């Protein structure tokens, strides 16, 4: 129960950081070799050598963050905001060292200018146990609507 609670708190915190646009704090949740991955196709088993919507290590995540913060990131000028809800948190596997594999569901509403979009799907986190917290080794995001045409694009992590 304690692990379940800790893991849930971790996922909620991650979602909150996204919605609060605290990009650096968000990136800090990843382990040094952590990867954020949104596969182009739910059948894909690895990001390596595959087309992917996102496949980013911390360095690429930093590019994305710095780009978003640049005053001339034109697409970032108009008002936009997101709201994430994370739920259905299930711990699939717990290692002897405290590492866990977790799956959960999310729903994200995005407002951009006057338009609302919805993205929903599942998260799979491989979390590495640290002294009193977790760090993300791998986050896989399968959006239910990943295959649909994108009306405009995605700017930051889902």
């Amino acid at each position: 129960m304690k692990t379940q609670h800790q893991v849930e708190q971790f996922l909620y915190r991650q979602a909150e950081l996204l919605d609060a646009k605290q990009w650096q704090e968000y990136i800090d949740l990843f382990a040094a070799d952590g990867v954020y991955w949104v596969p182009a196709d739910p059948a894909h088993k690895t990001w390596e050598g595959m087309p992917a919507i996102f496949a980013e290590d911390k360095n690429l995540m930093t590019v994305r963050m710095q780009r978003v913060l640049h005053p001339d990131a034109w697409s970032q000028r108009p008002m936009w905001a997101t709201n994430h809800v994370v739920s259905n948190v299930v711990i699939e596997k717990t290692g002897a060292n405290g590492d866990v594999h977790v799956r959960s569901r999310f729903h994200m509403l995005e407002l951009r200018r006057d338009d609302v979009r919805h993205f929903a799907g599942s998260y799979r986190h491989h979390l590495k146990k640290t002294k009193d917290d977790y760090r993300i080794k791998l986050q896989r995001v399968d959006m239910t609507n990943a295959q649909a045409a994108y009306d405009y694009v995605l700017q930051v992590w889902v």
Partner: protein
Amino acid sequence: MLQERVPDLAKFVEPDRVRREVYVDPAIFELEMQRIHERYWIYCGHETQVPRPGDYYTVQIGRQPMLMVRGKDRKLHVLYNRCPHRGNMMCGDRHGNTGEFFRCSYHAWTFRHDGALRSIPMMESGYAGTRFGKDNPDCSMKRAARVESYRGFVFASLATNGPGLLEFLGESRIAFDDMCDRAPEGEVEIVPNCFRVIQRSNWKIFLENQLDALHPSVVHQSTGRAAMDVESRIKKQTGQAPLSYHMLSAFAAVTIEKWDGFQTLNYPYGHCILTGYMGLRPKDPDTLAYEKVMQKAYGKKRMEEILGVNIHHVLIYPGLSVQSALQQLRAVRPLGVDRTLTEIWHFRLKGAPEPIYRRSLAYYNLVNSPATLINADDLENFWKCHQGLASDGGDWVTFGRHFGRDLDNGSVVETGPNMGTSEAPMRNQMKAWAKYMQAAA
């Protein structure tokens, strides 16, 4: 009827400027679909997309929903995605395999892969003595008037008359030659994934952007700078940063002045080439290993020729933008006067070592995925462009940069030295547009 609502098109295009209605008037859009997209050669897909008999892919040509399908005889067919009985759509999925034949989901008429009627349930009892049956071509699925392919890239034209594909492509076929020649086996193969992104703007705004050397250092500064920063940090830490950082940082590193050093070549039918590429032939071990394979396949001299081709973008009017050196392309499907779908594909060089595929894949993911670090800011500008043109704030879109300095030798319009940022490609596209639009039906 439609034509009556469209004012005199000749007044819409001047050599150095274009009326705004060309981008925002729905009546002009309809006419464009009729006179350009549904008449000339439109890219359907690559042969390797449909390797097995029965494999099909849907594709929009102008306003027409079409199917590209592989027949049992391995021939490729392009058909209207419509049942001749009562008009039902034949394939409701974007792609798949139709099996031995098409079978309509409404009343089970079946058709061969070439569209010919195969069977009608209870045909004898129901249709004997009527004009409907196998002898009536109206009972078969309608086929695209013409289908041709070049080096595996399949095009269709919905008009019986007009130039053949090769004549139409002219010099722009270098897009496919450059891409395929870079493969040691001389062929490419589709990477089975299509990124589909909708732009909220007129299709021509996208085409005009493809060779717009004026915009990258303005629009893509944010990503270029960010990549440059991280690239130099990685270099300090490990001595070498992955080439993908360079592909992004080049957007900031290449200044407007440097873009001016490139050249544009502008051809009949509206096709254009922008030369110049950002460091695709570095001296890293991956490139050297690839060059070894290439030299074995082609010999030193031919390899040097192939790898020396210096192309940034080829625009094949009216709907294909190719980055041959990176083996990717964007096909343009106009959805409406202010909505445009781009279908973005990547190809693998047959016979090339894996790292070369990975390198262009990185570009495909970072620049062309729906989470693009680059196109996001283009699309934002396209939308704003369309918004501005929909207003009465001005009547004209101007293409005046380096106007009057183009070198026209009859078959190609070249920009002179240090005029890479010339708006010659836009002038060329609109000149072709006016010709297409005024051509007799």
